């Protein structure tokens, strides 16, 4: 699932370059296609990112960071209380 979602990212990049409508100005959703397509593209990116957050989130980051921070009371750049 995670790898499949990652593969959607280069696909989104390819879809971003909509050269097939480069010289078209027909209206779609009341806007020129060159505009409505990219507006829908933003929505599509948000949906893909939602899927990534849901199914490919790096849960280990949170736990590792909390554990390591607890192990390092005198963290490199923290200061003693004034």
């Amino acid at each position, binding site marked *: 699932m995670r790898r499949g979602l990652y593969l959607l*990212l280069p696909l*989104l*990049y390819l879809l*971003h*370059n*909509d*050269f097939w409508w*480069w*010289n*078209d*100005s027909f*209206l779609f959703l*009341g*806007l*020129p296609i*060159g*505009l409505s*397509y*990219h*507006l829908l*593209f*933003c*929505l599509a*990116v*948000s949906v893909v*990112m*939602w899927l*990534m*957050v849901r199914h490919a*989130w*790096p849960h280990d*980051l*949170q736990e*590792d*960071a*909390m554990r*390591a*921070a607890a192990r*390092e009371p005198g*963290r*490199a*750049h*923290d*200061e*003693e*209380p*004034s």
Partner: protein
Amino acid sequence: MIIAIISIYMLSVLAVGTLSHRLFRGTGEDYFVATRTIGPFVLLMSLFGTHMTSFTLLGASAQAYTVGVGVFGLLASSSALVVPVIFFFVGTRIWALGKRHGYLTPVQFFRDRWDSSGLGLALFVVLVGFVIPYLLIGVMGGGIAINQISQGAVPEWIGALVICLVVMTYVVYGGMRGTAWVNTFQTLVFMSLAALAFVWIAYKLGGVTEGIQRVAEARPDLLVREGHVPPLKMLSYVLIPVSAGMFPHLFIHWLTARKAETFRTSVIGYPLCVGVVWICSVLIGLYGAADFPGLQGPEANSILVRMIRLHSPELLAGLLAAGVVAAIMSSLDSQVLCLSTMFTQDIVRHYALGDQMSEKRQIFLARVFVAAILGLTFVIFLVSNRSIFNLGIWCFTGFASLFPIVLAALFWKRSTRSGVLASVAVTVLLWSYFFLQGWRDPSYTVADSGLMPVTVVFAASCLALWLVSLATRPPREEVLQRFF
């Protein structure tokens, strides 16, 4: 009326900044990164507000007026794709390492990652060098915008001075928490006012599609990309928003998150915010092509203001002025706080005072730096040429070309300090070369092909990092263990 609305807005900003001070804990970590307690919504708003500048409102409509619908795909939807991906893969990891090791600046992270003080210093110089023009553009844009919207009633220098003073007050007083809270307020203001201005103008024109029909009659070429956006430019422009991965002011905002999960709202919400704000600005610019044909050069930058004046009551013009100021200040505050944090932590604390520097002293020094940086920026604004506006895209090119460094820091164990230094050196050299070319001809692309110079600099930066890293001794195992 306009001056009254701007004044009320400035007072509201100061009130929000002051309110945030009630939660101030008096520690260095609280002043610099809000004790890493920022929640999901404030993180989204502060990241979005910091990334979007006055260009989002004024520049986007001017570009749509000149270039047409292609500007949305070029500038907006490319950011909508690239920036959340960076938040997902880079931002969360930077947050985790910041939490683990207590980092407050990007330089601290890079210095530790490659165990090199010299590399930290080199990156400090380059990052600060790229942020300062960006800062200057914000102050300049603010002065010019207020002057235009008030029809000359407020001189540019007064507009710029007021912006500097207000930002200085709440950043000095509220630190990162004040900045994040004010950013949230300002982002909500400029998003809603962009939408309000668009809805009002579209209503006056008889509807969204009716407005487009008028453009189709006056300037049909603006409704297609052909002739305005070369395909190679579209392909390569996607590297420009990559710069977000190396912006030190976004880096520091990542460190403020309460936990890794806090990023989820930003990852999902960012593309939607981009879509909402940019579609309004771009459509107003397009409609302007029918109402104000023939504007050239800097005149086109005022298209949004002209459209508001033509179609809206003075109240809306005043609110728009507040929106523009909001967009400017929401970037300026983070940049200033970031620079003052870097000067305090990466120079004074690292080289001069070390651990003898108490938290109170750190906060005091950071506040002095905030005031000094804004004061210096204002002085440069007074004496500099307006052509400095062209620097904007070059700052993005520089940051984007340094992005391989943060990728290597997080994902490539074999990368070495010499590789990173080579990457920085190649970036600076090639950037300088292309900058000189672009300064002479603002529409410059590589060999007139439409290819953005950032593509060449980015590729060379990657190559230098890769080759020199492989040719030099691998990093020590004990250093790697701290990061992988």
